[in-house]
């Protein structure tokens, strides 16, 4: 059996050793993603721990086809949440803000619902747009904006110059902007 299948099987059997295997096998990769997003070791390690908890809670019922991609999505989401919280703290930091956040956890505002719908539409549009991109362009785009890889790493990976990667990303972003405008999302 493939290692990833074995991990999922262990998770389905509620065997905690699956988390240890994930940590050993994919911990470094997840830490790198979180570290690139948060820029802080402690935060990145906490993101990995949160991700493991999410894995435990979401598999089953989920059964991802590509486990590392699933883990990357989870750790990324955790890191984005952390980023948002940190920014909220910077913005407000008052007891009122904290109280409002606590209430918002149980009472979603109309805006939030609208935002969730918009987010779903955006995800669908992005998926469609990404599928239409040539594979190489798509991978470069995802490495930068999904994996938060540095331009330098991407350039080394594809044997391109820094300016060529930057130019490629700029063109792809311009295309995305045009597409989102056409779809009425911008």
């Amino acid at each position, binding site marked *: 059996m493939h290692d990833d299948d074995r991990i999922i099987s262990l998770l389905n059997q509620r065997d905690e050793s699956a988390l240890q295997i994930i940590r050993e096998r994919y911990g470094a990769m997840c830490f*790198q993603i979180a570290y690139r997003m948060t820029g802080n070791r402690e935060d*990145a390690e906490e993101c990995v721990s949160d991700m493991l908890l999410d894995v435990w809670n979401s598999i089953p019922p989920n059964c991802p086809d590509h486990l590392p*991609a699933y883990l*990357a999505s989870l750790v990324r989401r955790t890191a984005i949440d952390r980023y948002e919280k940190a920014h909220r703290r910077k913005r407000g930091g008052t007891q009122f803000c904290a109280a409002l956040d606590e209430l918002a956890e149980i009472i979603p505002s109309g805006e939030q619902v609208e935002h969730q719908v*918009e987010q779903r539409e955006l995800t669908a549009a992005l*998926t469609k747009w990404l599928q239409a991109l040539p594979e190489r362009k798509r*991978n470069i785009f*995802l490495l930068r904006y999904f994996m938060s890889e540095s331009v330098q790493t991407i350039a080394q990976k594809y044997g391109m110059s820094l300016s060529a990667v930057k130019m490629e990303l700029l063109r792809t972003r311009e295309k995305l902007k045009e597409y989102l405008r056409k779809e009425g999302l911008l």
Partner: protein
Amino acid sequence: MNALDVMKALGNVPADMIGTCMDDLTAADEPELPEAGTALHDDLPEPVSAVRSVRIIRIIPAAAAACLLIGVFAAVYPKLRIQTPEITEPPAAIVTTETTAQNTPETTAVTVYTTAVSQKATYRTTAETVSQIVTETVTDVFTDPVETQPDTVSELQPQTEATMISTAITETAPQQPDTMTVPLWKGSVSNSSSELIIDEAPNFSCLFRRLPFEQPDPFFELSNQYESLREEFSIPQDFDLTQEPLLDITIITGYKDTAITGCRYTQNGLNLTVSYLKTNEISEYTVRYAIPLPENLKVEPENCTVEYVALTDEDAYQALLTDSLSFELDH
């Protein structure tokens, strides 16, 4: 919607897409897993600030050593300069000679020898040498071997010559140096033909024009014309275009990498060496240069000529590029 929303939405795109991108990344360099019992981040790069501080610490001893060396050199050099006569062989000229001689016919080889000599002469003028004698001596040496071969080049630097020159220095009265160095201002390189020329011989021509304008363009203010000229060649502001003449050189060439790499003063004119890097891509390019013409330099555009040197080695071509020209004045 903001950028963060797009980032969040990217987290929900199908896993197979992310998987392909991740496979692509890990195929090149699989991230090493931390050993059991070690922290996850042991093999990760240090944060930027930490890396910078480490680098700075590493640089400090080298910088201190360099400063010390410069200090010692600054203290010792003036004394050395007074004590020793400045007769040294300039090796760069020889390298140039060899390269050119291999790629060009006999006549060019002769020209190149002269260039080498002129460099030598320039070097010696700092010690108030008699360059006239140097020139004559060298002429004696070089006019004979017209059937020069590349491997005879090294013979053009005989030890006896240096001895002879140093003797001349002691015996002859000081004289004004007769070597001149002028800046070479490069202008634009434009491609006048959008298509590559295949199976055709490239065009070469060179136009010389003396500025300031004898017949200014009637449609533009003269000051604007000067300004555009200054901009074209990046001429320093302290150079007064209204007072000091320029030689405007326009080279039409089949190769993009074409440059003026040498110069020889002839009877009221200049004989320029134009080198080009011969590649398979032939088109029509226009390369512009300007040379300031000091008062004591009599140059008439109609007396100017060009010798072309083809090079196939890019490094050799790069080594020839210069932003100034030195040449002997003909007395």
